[in-house]
């Protein structure tokens, strides 16, 4: 027969044990979650620091995220993770999620100012498909390539190939392992000079095609130049989106290629905003210096101020999807560059 005290001991023991067990389990579970989140946050902080460092020094680096799904995706300017979103602002970044990424700084130089941006991309193989022998096609290919990262000094590679020659229904590519600078300096000029002609490429596993053509063809990502400067990008890609987009600089093409419409809109917003601030600053600087430098500099300074005023106005109010607006923007950029060169030659 169990006494009252023994019964009390049993019930009391069960209650206390259950209480202790629940507390320990709760803590263990929440600490597992906290530990995983902390690890993800640590990775993100290190990644952001690596991007910051590359942006200020210009020295490229590799970054091993080492966790499959830390960065879910990039919605510019935020790296979106399961824990939180980390903003890369104010750095303009073309980020493509991956396990191992190569981080580079690149720039769009207009003489009196340059737009610096980060490219953080995983291993990638890109095949250029220039269709036709027209100068504008090959010039566009060269212009675009300049704005891809040069991965000669990093472990994670972005390599290029050129294609395709269609022989008996099989796509034949011209190697696939060129670094960016070799492609620009040697391969593209040689192929153009030799008069090589290529056919449209079909899809190839592990490769991304970038078709450049004077008239639209059936391709996932194609650049159709109007002239050496501007044109349209036709996208027909389930991953990156579908649509037709105006480009005014190769940066727009790179943005679309790496991140589709989201990145295109972000890049345009950032570029035009920074261009507006840069024009305003350069205009105020020219006004300040006009009375203090050589009197022969007065006229070019005045012209420079005038052009920069127009440029700021279009950067602020122009529509980056409108061909006329962007043609006007490019015309003013060209004018400002010419006047700036002239001023430099005059020692202003």
């Amino acid at each position, binding site marked *: 027969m169990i006494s009252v005290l023994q019964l009390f001991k049993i019930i009391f023991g069960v209650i*206390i044990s259950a209480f202790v067990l629940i*507390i320990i389990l709760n*803590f263990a579970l929440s600490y597992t979650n906290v530990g995983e989140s902390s690890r993800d946050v640590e990775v993100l902080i290190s990644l952001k620091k690596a991007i910051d460092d590359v942006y*200020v020094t210009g020295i490229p680096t590799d970054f091993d995220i080492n966790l499959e799904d830390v960065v879910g995706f990039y919605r510019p300017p935020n790296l979106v993770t399961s824990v939180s979103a980390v903003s890369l602002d104010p750095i303009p970044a073309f980020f493509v999620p991956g396990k191992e990424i190569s981080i580079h700084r690149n720039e769009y130089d207009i003489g009196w100012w340059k737009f*610096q941006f980060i490219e953080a991309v995983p291993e990638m193989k890109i095949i250029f498909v220039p269709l036709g022998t027209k100068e504008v096609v090959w010039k566009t290919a060269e212009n675009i390539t300049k704005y891809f990262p040069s991965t000669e000094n990093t472990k994670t590679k972005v390599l290029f190939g050129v294609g395709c020659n269609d022989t008996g229904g099989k796509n034949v590519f011209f190697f696939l392992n060129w670094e960016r600078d070799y492609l620009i300096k040697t391969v593209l000029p040689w192929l153009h000079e030799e008069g090589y002609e290529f056919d449209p490429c079909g899809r190839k596993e592990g490769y991304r095609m970038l078709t450049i053509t004077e008239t639209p063809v059936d391709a996932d990502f194609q650049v159709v130049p109007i002239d050496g400067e501007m044109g349209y990008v036709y996208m027909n890609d389930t991953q990156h989106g579908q649509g037709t987009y105006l480009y005014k600089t190769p940066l727009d093409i790179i943005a679309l290629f790496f991140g589709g419409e989201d990145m295109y809109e972000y890049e345009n917003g950032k570029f035009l905003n920074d261009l507006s*601030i840069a024009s305003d*600053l350069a205009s105020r*600087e020219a006004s300040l210096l006009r009375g*203090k430098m050589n009197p022969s500099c007065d006229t070019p300074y005045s012209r420079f101020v005038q052009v920069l005023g127009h440029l700021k106005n279009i950067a602020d109010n122009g529509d980056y999807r409108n061909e006329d607006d962007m043609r006007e923007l490019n015309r003013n950029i060209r004018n400002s560059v010419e006047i700036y060169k002239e001023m430099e030659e005059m020692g202003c």
Partner: protein
Amino acid sequence: MLRSGQAHLMEYILLSFFIVMVIVIIVFFLAGWQIGTTGSRKQLLQQQRAAFLMKSFSNSPFLNKEGFKEGGMLEDSKLTVLDCGDLEALVGRGWFAEVKVLDSTAECTKDNYPRCGVWKFCKTDNPEFIAYDIPVNIYRTVTKDVEIGILTVGFYE
């Protein structure tokens, strides 16, 4: 019999009280440790941000002389026309910067330029900030000389 039973009961209640106390102490210790870690991480992030702003300011294409590839060469004419609003539009609020040519005291305005050597941006009276300073080159646009200055960039806490 009843007294002995009560004494046993008291023993158990005391024992469970001590167990609960130990658990509470462990919980407080772990929570405190977590808060401490979060605090030091926040401080580390602020230091990182201040250091980034400083390097970013000294290398900014908005403020540097064209053609100097080896790091920063701040241009005095660009610094003179720059204002706090421009900086806030570029990198956000909550920070300040000061550039000072060694031995110079006159703050630059459009009127006294180029006979000046101090530029201040977004400075407030808030005494709590993290700041870094580094030596920088300053290009004198009018005289085409290069002088040495100190760049201080801080982040208000």
